[in-house]
Every structure is written in structure tokens, then in C-alpha cells.
């Protein structure tokens, strides 16, 4: 088996093989780019490597990574969820609101946040799969509906740490062996979901539905159930991201987390998950989130204007997807040439 696979590529040089392998694996490419970026920033701004800076970068990136993992599940099924940012904002606010009333314990409030996220995700999934509607239209709608709910709950108020029970915001600054708690949570989420995709029928169905929904139906995969589950999980993870968001940012408004859906989709796409469905990994999506976080931090440390951030995110999305397309085209050509030979 190993000998078989080694025969064909052996004709090309080692360097070419390394380039294609790394180019093919978005996770490796991203890892390399991040190391180069980090080195570059460290040379210009040594405080990059300070524990406090690293904690801040990775904590924020961890929240985004959790949301990106959920979004990746949906995008793998060839759908998209634009409402995640409103789910994050709404859960963050509701959890803070519950805590400020001191009726539920802190863990109960967190559970309520997760439950709320799950329900919002299920609502998306139910409308999309029951009525066979395009997810982009439905979630564009719920993007504003869920935000409207946040305005309704908030009623002009804002929540801040002073109103919360003691110990609420502590977790965001806690570390274990120097690793921030949120990072551990994010790693746990990534590992669990990655195993879910790799080892369970649900994971295989997700990719099957995304690459060819009709073929998946023919072999007996319930594609609507699979898509519904993907949206539900996305909502649940957005709920978790919302709970963490509330802990990280002391003050929460009805407009909290507005506009971050762009960054979440960017993370997923940069992480190598194809928007056309059926391919990509959640590890890639999480690394994508970390990469965007690093860029943000680099701008801050190098004293570059924060206004550049949106433009850079946009540019990064376009470059990543264009590179993907060009690489694929080249690979297809190489494959065609190999066949001719």
C-alpha cells in the first residue's frame, strides 16, 4: 500500500513534493505563515512574546475559534450561518442579565446560555430543512431577528461586571500551567468536534451531504437531519462563545459582537474549509481564527491604524480563496499530465 502510493510522486523532486504537501494542507500552510508572522512581529515589537500579550491574543482567538468550529460544520454541509454573531450577542446579554438578577447560580446561567444558543441554532436548522429554504436567506433574516431579540431583552440597558456575582469574570483570566482557561476550552471543543467528524457516521454524513446532497440521499443519508444537526451544533457553539464573550468583556450591550460574523466566516475560509461544501477541517477553522487574531494583535503592537483591520480581513479572505482555486487548478493540470504520461 505504502509502496504503491510512493511510486507516482517519486518522479517529482523532493522540493516540489514538500511544496505541494504543505500547499495542499491548509493547516500546515497557516501554521507556517503564523510562525513567520509571529517572528516578524517579535523582531519589531518584543512585547509580543510577553505572557500578558500572549494570553490576551489567545483568549480572544479561542472565543472566535469556538464560533468558527460551529460555522465550519455548517459550511461543510454547503450551507452558511450568518446569524452566529447575533446568537453570540444575545446569549452574552441574556447570561449577564440572568446573573445580575442573582436568581440562578453561575453554572446554571452558563447552561442557560448554551441552551439558548442551541435553541436559536435549532430554529435556523428547522426553518431551513423543513421548508427547504436557502440558508443564506434564512440566516440573513435571523441575523436581524436575533439581534432584535437582544434589543428587546436589553430594553436600553447595558450589563457590566459590577452587577454580576463575584467570581463571574474570573475564569477569563485563569490559567493552567500558563495556558489560559479559554484556550483549553477551545482546544477541547476542537478535539471533540474533530473526533466527531472523523469517527462517527454523523461526521461522514456531513461531508457526504456537503459534496453531493443527492448522492448522499441515494445511499440513504438523511441529508435534512444532518443539516439540521449541523445548524443546532453551530448554535450551541455560538452559545458557548457568547458565554465566554460575556466573561471576557466586562460590559455587554444589545449590540455586542455586531459585525463579527465576517471575521468568523473569514476564519473558516482562511482555515481551508471550502464554501462550496464537502471539504475542510475544524482544526483549520480554529487555526484560521488564531491567524486573524494574530493579525489584529500585530496591527496593535506595530502601532498601525486599527482602521486597516477590516480591509486586511477582506484581503485575507480573497487571497486565501483565490490561492485555493489556483492551487486546485494546478493540481488538476498536473493530474491530467500524469495520466497522459
Amino acid at each position, binding site marked *: 500500500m505504502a509502496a504503491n502510493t510512493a511510486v507516482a510522486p517519486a518522479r517529482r523532486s523532493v522540493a516540489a513534493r514538500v511544496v505541494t504537501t504543505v500547499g495542499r494542507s491548509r493547516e500546515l500552510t497557516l501554521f507556517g505563515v503564523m510562525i513567520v508572522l509571529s517572528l516578524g512581529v517579535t523582531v519589531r515589537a518584543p512585547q509580543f512574546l510577553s505572557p500578558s500579550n500572549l494570553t490576551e491574543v489567545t483568549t480572544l482567538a479561542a472565543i472566535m475559534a469556538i464560533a468558527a468550529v460551529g460555522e465550519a460544520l455548517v459550511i461543510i454541509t454547503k450551507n*452558511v450561518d450568518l446569524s452566529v454573531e447575533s446568537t453570540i450577542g444575545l446569549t452574552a446579554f441574556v447570561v449577564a442579565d440572568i446573573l445580575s438578577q442573582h436568581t440562578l447560580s453561575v453554572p446554571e446561567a452558563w447552561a442557560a446560555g448554551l441552551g439558548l444558543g442551541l435553541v436559536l441554532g435549532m430554529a435556523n436548522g428547522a*426553518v431551513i430543512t423543513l*421548508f*427547504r*429554504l*436557502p440558508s*443564506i*436567506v*434564512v440566516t*440573513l*433574516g*435571523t*441575523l*436581524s*431577528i436575533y*439581534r*432584535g*431579540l437582544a*434589543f*428587546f431583552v436589553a430594553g436600553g440597558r447595558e450589563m457590566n461586571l459590577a452587577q454580576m456575582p463575584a467570581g463571574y469574570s474570573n475564569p477569563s483570566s485563569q490559567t493552567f500551567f500558563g495556558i489560559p482557561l479559554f484556550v483549553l476550552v477551545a482546544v477541547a471543543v476542537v478535539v471533540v468536534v474533530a473526533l466527531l467528524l472523523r469517527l462517527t457516521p454523523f461526521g461522514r454524513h456531513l461531508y457526504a451531504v456537503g459534496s453531493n446532497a443527492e448522492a*448522499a*440521499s*441515494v445511499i*440513504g*443519508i*438523511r*441529508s435534512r437531519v444532518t443539516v439540521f444537526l449541523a445548524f443546532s451544533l453551530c448554535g450551541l457553539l455560538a452559545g458557548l462563545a457568547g458565554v465566554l464573550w460575556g466573561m471576557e468583556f466586562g460590559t455587554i450591550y*444589545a449590540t455586542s459582537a455586531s459585525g463579527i460574523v*465576517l471575521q468568523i*466566516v*473569514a476564519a473558516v*475560509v482562511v482555515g481551508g474549509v471550502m*464554501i*462550496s461544501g464537502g471539504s475542510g477541517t475544524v482544526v483549520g477553522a480554529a487555526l484560521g481564527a488564531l491567524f486573524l487574531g494574530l493579525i489584529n494583535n500585530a496591527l496593535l503592537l506595530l502601532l498601525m*491604524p486599527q*482602521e*486597516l*483591520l*477590516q*480591509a*486586511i*480581513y*477582506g*484581503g485575507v*479572505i*480573497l487571497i486565501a*480563496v*483565490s490561492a485555493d*482555486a*489556483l492551487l486546485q487548478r494546478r493540481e488538476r493540470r498536473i493530474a491530467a499530465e500524469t495520466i497522459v504520461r
Partner: protein
Amino acid sequence: MTDSPSSTPAASVAAADEPVLSRPGFLQRFSGMARWEVLLLVVLGLLVLEGTRLSKYFISGSNFSNLITAVMEVAICALPETLIIITGEIDLSVESMIGLSSALLGWLWAAGVQLEVAILIVLVVGILGGLLNGLLVSRVALPSLVVTIGTLALFRGLADVILGPTAISNFPAAFTAFGFSTIPGTPVPFTLVVFVILGAVFWTVAHATWIGRQIFAVGKNKDAARYSGVRVGTLKMALFVVSGLVAAFAGVILTSRFSSATADNGTGLTLVVVTIVVLGGVDINGGKGTIPGVILAVFTLATLQNELTLAGVSSEYQAVAVGLLLIASVTVPYLARQIGPMVERVRAGRRQPADSIGPGEIVS
């Protein structure tokens, strides 16, 4: 029977073929297409009735011009968006192009550039932005959803870079008047005239020219269109360029109406533009839709927003209403499609036709 005249079967064949060969009459074609438009007209009528109940000022020249000017930017953006969605693509970047156009106009004006020249530059930037979308979609063959999510961030980012958090508001009165004032002596806003002209152009192009036929052909079946000689890539690129140009112009109108150029002008308008298009009966999967439907949707949405304002509903909740409207306007046709076969099934006394067996179900 055996000696039946040979002309009879031939005649009957010809008769049977006739409806297939002949082009469907105008009314036939219209009835298939127009059901949604009629429904919209009814909804619009009901909204107007409700409006007269809400306020005695609802039917007044000044309220009409308020109602109309509030949606003109999204209305003109909805026209090219309609054609793009009919080809099976989507442009989510319009709201950021509006912002970029506004920011650039403000910056150029503040830098002392003559206003006419500044507007011209802004329109050229709109074309370039559309060209970027179009090139990536048609030449690099990327999905328009991800491309325009990228440029949604990119254009907004450029707007931020150009203007930062400042607002430019010292525009000449003649310019700011264009955005909200009406033709003297009438309740017709200048911007409505622009929309009517653009609407007429898009109506003609979409439904009476070869370009329109190609657009629908691409949306129905891209490959078949390509094999029939349609230059799919060029067509899509042209549509994205038009969308960029129109969005930049919408940014100029918005700047004029608000008398203020800011980098965050237009935020959230993509939702409204897509809602108008989908409410207008355009199939988000491409291939189906009409410009008159979209124009009706513009007036329906404008009336709804106006009434919500009259009823004291804040803009946050109006966005919720728009979101609900968006979902309703895709759900209603789906349910309508389901009800037809369901009625037939009941009539035929069968539980399920063979072709609707779900995945994994056992055929007994």
C-alpha cells in the same frame, strides 16, 4: 376505421403539436409569472388601507416623498442585485460599496476637489470595485458568496482607512437638496426620478433584450447557456460592474440625503436589498424573477417601513420586521408549492406519490 382518410390523423397530430410549437400568448405567459406580483399588489393595497387608518397624514404629498426617499438607495441597488441573483450569484458587498463611496466622496470634498469631479471619481471606484468582484467570480471561478463576503469587509475597511471615524458634512446646499427634496410643486422626489429611469432601463434590458434572455438562460442552466454561445463569465462580470457602479451612486445619494459622509454609512443595507429582491419574487437559486416584481417590492417595503415609523416602532425593531419579511417571502412560495400537489394527492386518494419518498425510507 381501416379506410379513414389519411388527413385526419395528420390533422390531429398538428393540432396536438400546436400548443407546443406556438409561442405562449402574452396572457398565458403573464398569468404564470404574475401570480406573485398580484399577491404583492394585494399586500401593498392592504398596507395602504392600514396606513390611512393609522394616520390621516398617511395619504399626503409630504409623507409620500418621505416614504419614497427613505428607500431609494436600496431600491436602485436592488435592480442590479436582481439580475445577479437571477444568474445564480449574489452580491453581498453593496452596503460596503455604499460606505466606501460615501467616505471617498467626503474625503475628496474635504480635500478641496470639485464636487462633480469627486462624484465622477467615486463612480469610477464603484466600477473598479465591481470589476474586482466580477473578475474573482468569473475568471478565478470563486463562489460569489465568499468573494462578496470578502469585499464586504474589504470595501468597508477601505472606507475606514480613508475617512476614519470623522464625518464630513459641509456639502453645498444644492448637493444635499438632491437627496431629499422634490421636483418643485410636486411630491415627486428627485431620487424617485432616478429610480424610475433606472427601473425602466433594467426592465427593458431584463425582459425585452437578448441580454435579459442570456441572464435568465445562465440562471436556469449555466452549462446549457455556455454551449449555446452565451459568454457566461463576461455576462456575470458585467453585472457585478453594474452593481458596483450603481452601489457607488447609491452612496452618493445617501451622502446627499444625510448631508453627511461617514465610513459607516450604509451598514446593514445588504439585508434590505436582498429582502427587496426576494420579496419581489426572485428565486434565490437563480433563473426566475421579474423587475416589475422587484419594483413592487420596493414600494411594499417602503410603505411597511413608513407605517412602522408612524406607529412609533424603533429602527432596531424595523430591522426585525425586515428579517421576518425576508423569511416569510421565501417560505410562502414554498408552502404554496406544497399545497398544490397536496390537494391533488387528496383528490387522487393516494397518500404519497412515488417520487416523494424520502431518503432512507422503505418502499412498501
